[in-house]
């Protein structure tokens, strides 16, 4: 299996490392900027491509780690060439783009996998499995927190441009939106508040979203790009009719090293880490490899990734208009 990674930033590097643990071979790298492309290609022994088509021509699988607003265009071109797709979350920046991508992959008969890596983080997997086994009965209240500093603060990085990334809600909180629907089922309505929806130029962002699940459960999702560096915190709690699972902020770190802060300028995005035998990104990639190689069922289907995008877009819309929004009623033209 030959893989081409589009994008040579934080996620491109992360995926390249993860692919290395699978039987697949990263054969090609393409990103618009030549230097990072050459560097990453050299690291993994892949060819550095000068165009997307050049990459597509060399591989079986296209792994899209490009900025969110480019996911759809890259994916469509790859699908048209009959290549399987792995797209980093979120599926796309806009609902219409996501829908188009699903349709194109179905028509082309290629796989569309989306990197909702939270479904491979052990604490989240264990809690989901416990719920599925019925250990805590029916889910009543699911509480999810994810926060860090504002990545690339004060720079022109695409992540800071909400028209390109969808901001905190689409880039960070979508992890938990997807997890919420994985654990508690489809979401009927979303009510949210965010700082950026009220104040476009705010230096950070903070968002609270309440989800009403169709089956009766409620989710409370908190997202922050407003913590001081280098803080990155996640928390998980599920209360059910027969019990409670708690994974509070304080206990997610078995190891805590606090060093005197060096100059913290220009901090990049980070992923939460916990000492584990296997990096969850690797676990994810091994699963993705098996799905593509053996046709196993994906842990996150394309339809679920589209549903997660709908929840996130509904949260953005609710924070903007102030009212609860039904993800299923969003129209592609406006979102």
């Amino acid at each position, binding site marked *: 299996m030959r893989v081409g990674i589009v994008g040579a930033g934080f996620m491109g590097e992360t995926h390249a490392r993860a692919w290395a643990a699978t039987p697949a071979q990263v054969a090609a790298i393409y990103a618009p900027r030549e230097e990072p492309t050459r560097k990453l290609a050299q690291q993994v022994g892949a060819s550095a491509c000068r165009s997307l088509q050049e990459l597509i021509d060399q591989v079986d699988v296209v792994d899209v780690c490009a900025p969110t607003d480019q996911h759809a265009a890259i994916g469509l071109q790859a699908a048209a060439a009959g290549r399987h797709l792995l797209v980093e979350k979120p599926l796309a920046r806009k609902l219409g783009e996501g829908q188009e991508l699903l349709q194109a992959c179905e028509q082309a008969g290629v796989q569309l996998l989306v990197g909702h890596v939270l479904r491979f983080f052990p604490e989240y997997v264990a809690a989901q499995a416990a719920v599925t086994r019925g250990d805590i*009965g*029916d*889910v*009543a*209240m699911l*509480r999810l*927190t994810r*926060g860090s500093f504002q990545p690339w603060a004060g720079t022109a990085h695409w992540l800071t441009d909400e028209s390109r990334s969808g901001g905190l809600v689409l880039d960070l909180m979508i992890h938990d939106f997807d997890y919420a629907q994985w654990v508690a089922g489809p979401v009927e*309505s979303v*009510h949210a*508040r965010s*700082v950026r929806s*009220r104040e476009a130029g*705010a*230096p*950070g962002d*903070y968002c*609270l979203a*309440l989800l*009403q699940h169709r089956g*009766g*459960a*409620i989710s*409370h999702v*908190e997202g*922050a790009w*407003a*913590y*001081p560096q280098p*803080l990155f915190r996640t928390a998980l709690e599920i*209360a*059910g*009719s027969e*019990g*409670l699972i708690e994974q509070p902020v304080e206990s997610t770190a078995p190891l805590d090293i606090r060093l005197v802060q060096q100059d913290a300028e220009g901090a990049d995005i980070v992923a939460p880490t916990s000492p584990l035998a296997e990096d969850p990104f690797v676990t994810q990639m091994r699963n993705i490899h098996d799905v593509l190689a053996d046709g196993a069922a994906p842990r996150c289907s394309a339809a679920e990734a589209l549903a997660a995008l709908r929840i996130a877009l509904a949260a953005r819309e609710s924070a903007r208009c*102030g*009212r*609860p929004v039904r993800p299923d009623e969003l129209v592609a033209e406006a979102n």
Partner: protein
Amino acid sequence: MTSLRVALLSSAHVHAAGWLAGLRQRAEVTVLGVADEDRARGRSFAAAQGLTWFDSYAALLAEAPDAVVINSENTRHAALVDRAADAGAHIFCEKPLATTADEARRMVARCQDAGVTLMTAFPMRFSPAVIAAREALLAGNLGRVYGCNATNQGQLPAGVPWFIDPQLAGGGALMDHVVHVADLLRWFFGSEAREVYALANRILHRELEPQVETGAVVLLDFEDGSFASIDCSWSRPPQYPTWGNVKLEIVGEGGLLTLDAFRQASTVYRRGTPGAQLAYWGSDANQGLIDDFVDSLLQGRPPAISGEDGVRASAIAEAALKSARSGEPVQL
């Protein structure tokens, strides 16, 4: 005034013993006794606490207490406030002051007319950790506040069935637990809530077939533009190492403030007791609240927490119930 004669009206609420213990710490206070419309409950409380039992509220109020502590079920607060005000007694009332804002307002007006003090029991304002958090906010350490993620989750009070009786409690988890944090947020932000949205369900404690919400979360918009959520669910199982929590995580331009008001606790494991128990060793906020009530009367000054504070918090809880029913945000 140099001494106070205090009467306990009802022993329905689980906090009654705590208020009594606080009163007994004060040499100036004489506790006259307790009356309760549930005579069996009242007699047993009186016996357990070594209190004089009065067979009726009228008999107890005929002793002309200077002040009363109302521990009744939520929807019975108003009638007891009326009786105490008629008797000219100052009033310390368990939260929520009332189950509707209108009724709470009427109670405040009634006390004003009678010239008696009405204090709402919001002890968290006397927690040193809470006070320190407020001081940090007032000092501007967080800059502009963006929002707050708060929980006041708890166990369902065991063996006290009126908490899930809509006639007596006026609601479930929303009525029991939203008011504490709602009051703290008003106090912290110096701003009033202008809109309330809530989601609720009855999945927790389903075996009791509750006619009230047992799990719920509220999203509040404040006039200053900040927003806050309060998870008020009865989501701590019976074997949880403590009764529940009051936690606030406030995020602002300047960073993150986390407050866990009952964190000052040791974990205790005992032979014969399954699991762990948390032994709280922090300061007693209940005593601070009782002291303020007693001192305000002795010194002839208003108490730190007013009836109006109770009205505001009750209005938020009432709006939350309305929103949970309609699925729509409710304006205050």
